[in-house]
């Protein structure tokens, strides 16, 4: 129960920060952090898969609504939520995809390498999908690639910072 409230609160806070602050950051003219992904990353893996997809879709829709890019983030988030358990299990080193209770993708439960790779892979997937869907063309592909790369690095940096800063403060619960 406590866990659910913490998750919902985290979702709300991160979404508000994303749509009001992060979306208006444009470092060097093209780097925008996607901090709200952290809320999706920290969802418990043992939730029903369909619920996970739906949460991803809804989150993406809210972000889209504020960014005037309907469909882009919802697609990318849903796809990311689909890939997420596979990434987690690949990082755990087990080949069979079974969703166990111990799988908490949080800094307290995992080491830095695990958290870093998990964040990096999922963020780059999200950015790849969303930026490509937003541009909808392969013209000027060098710049598109630069945007994907820049967004990914900036997002990973911001997400890891927030994750570790707030983790150490509240002893295991973000």
């Amino acid at each position, binding site marked *: 129960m406590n866990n659910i409230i913490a998750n919902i609160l985290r979702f709300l806070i991160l979404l508000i920060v994303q749509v009001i602050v992060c979306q208006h950051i444009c470092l060097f003219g093209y780097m925008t952090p996607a901090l709200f992904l952290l809320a999706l990353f920290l969802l418990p893996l043992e939730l029903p898969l369909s619920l996970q997809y739906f949460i991803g879709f809804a989150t993406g829709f809210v972000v889209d*609504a504020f960014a005037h890019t309907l469909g882009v983030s919802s697609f990318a988030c849903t796809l990311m939520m689909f890939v997420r358990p596979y990434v987690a299990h690949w990082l755990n080193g087990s080949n069979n995809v079974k969703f166990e209770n111990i799988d908490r993708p949080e800094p307290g439960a995992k080491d830095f390498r695990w958290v870093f790779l998990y964040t990096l892979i999922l963020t780059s997937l999200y950015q790849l999908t969303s930026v490509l869907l937003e541009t909808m063309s392969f013209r000027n592909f060098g710049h598109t690639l630069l945007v994907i790369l820049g967004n990914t690095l900036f997002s990973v940096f911001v997400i890891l910072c927030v994750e570790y800063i707030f983790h150490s403060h509240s002893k295991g619960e973000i």
Partner: protein
Amino acid sequence: MNNLIEFFKRAFHIIVLAVLLILSVVMLGKSLAFNDYRLSRAVQSVVGPIQKSGRSMIHRFHLGPENEALVQQNIQLLREQENMFIVKEDTILTEMSMPDSTNTKRVRLYDYTYAHVIFRTTDRAFNYMIVDKGSKDGITRDMAVLSPQGVAGVVTDVSPNFATVRPILHPESRISAVVTPANQNGTVIWEDNDPRVAYLEAIPQHSEINIGDSVFTNGFSNIFPKGLFIGTVKEVQVGNNASFLTIKINLATPYTDIYTVYLVENTFKAELDSLKANFKNE
């Protein structure tokens, strides 16, 4: 039948995934390919107000630079006002005797710059302000100081980076003024230690002054350009001295809340002052 239910149970999340992905693509396609704005308009009507309040919150951090830009623009506009110039006969044009052209030219008499108040007092008998520009920035003694609302004071002392301003709120402050529509000239002084109120003296008793009349500078002092707002009449009394009225005025400048000020330089001040000095000596 059982097999079918079993299949749905296992494949349910795949179906949800497919539906959600297709929904996303439809939304994306509608706004991109078909220029169908109904959905985005509906979303905007919900999101818009939230976004607006969020933006206005963030916008506070940008107010500083934006203010600075607006002050710059104000200076440009203020410099082009009619009371900044004197009209002179242009000898070159006269000699060429061009019939159509007006043989006058406008010569700049006053010039503007701006500064920020970094320290001020309002509750003392001798108040003063310090602004963040000095002789390095071309500030000299006796420059007029204006607030966005009206006349604020006069520069009395200048160091390389800062300048001291004597506001109207000072017993030695004297500003020649005209009260309209009666068009009577007088002097604004300050007595009551109230930062909102000053006195207009030397207005003859026969003049018709009403509460709410505006008081402007009259440009006699060579410090203030003509027609700058000082305040409005608050109270009119027949004074002890039978020939003059005692007039209380509300000052336009909010001294307790002053930050950006404009400084006005009279470019012919030295010349005019030397003429006045000769006049005194005679």
